[in-house]
């Protein structure tokens, strides 16, 4: 329990705690509140790893909590934008579906290696960063449908690349890590 309840995980957990505020921002039509929450989440995301190393409390649970926070932010912000008319339905649904396919690849990787580990690729890290900015664009009403469709296109390219890596990566190398 002590390894789960540490400063880095509490820090990361606040990203999940503020998610209802995004829905509230959409419901009350306060776009700048939505932008503020997304910005807060982005800043915490880039700092929580540093905090974990600084206080020597990096855990596997923390790594998974970080990934869950990223996915939750993506789903809640995009659904809110779609429900309250900030973004088109077609690109939002397509992007959410691609997110599910992307997550499926991570599950295949866990099954292949037999180790609960988060598959990482540089392209998907870049995609994660760009997704954060596209969510900001959604609430700022900035080229939003174009941005979402372009993100769909790049997601397809990266998913194909990641699946190829997931299916061909030498398993014994991961198991020995």
């Amino acid at each position: 329990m002590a390894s789960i309840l540490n400063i880095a995980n509490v820090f990361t957990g606040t990203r999940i705690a503020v998610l209802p505020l995004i829905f509230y921002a959409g419901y009350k039509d306060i776009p700048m509140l939505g932008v503020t929450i997304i910005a807060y989440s982005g800043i915490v995301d880039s700092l929580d790893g540093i905090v974990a190393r600084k206080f020597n409390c990096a855990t596997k649970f923390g790594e998974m909590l970080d990934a869950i926070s990223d996915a939750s932010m993506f789903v809640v912000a995009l659904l809110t934008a779609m429900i309250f008319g900030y973004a088109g339905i077609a690109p939002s649904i397509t992007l959410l579906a691609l997110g599910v396919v992307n997550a499926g690849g991570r599950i295949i990787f866990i099954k292949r290696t037999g180790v609960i580990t988060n598959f990482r690729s540089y392209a998907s890290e870049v995609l994660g960063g760009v997704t954060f900015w596209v969510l900001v664009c959604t609430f700022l009403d900035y080229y939003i449908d174009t941005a979402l469709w372009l993100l769909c296109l790049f997601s397809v390219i990266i998913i194909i690349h990641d699946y190829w890596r997931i299916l061909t990566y030498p398993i014994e190398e991961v198991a020995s890590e």
Partner: protein
Amino acid sequence: MNNLFVLHSYHGMSDGKTMLFSVLLIIIFSIFFPLFTWRFIRDIKNLKLFNSSVDDIRKKIDLQDRVFGWFVAMSMLSFVLVAALSVVIK
């Protein structure tokens, strides 16, 4: 350019905020595009120097992954620049 990047208005952001955000995106582009370009060239060079008989295969996979990642980042940032410029140069 504006035909490529259709500026829909779902809830009508003010022109001032749109301009401010575009300037922010141009600043981000100016910082990150050279950074990713440098990393891309560096890792292409490393990949060319890679000796598969001596070096670890895991290292080669990592290098290929890096090169692909930096290329994707540069491509995405190019779209960011076009979008931002289409607002600034109107």
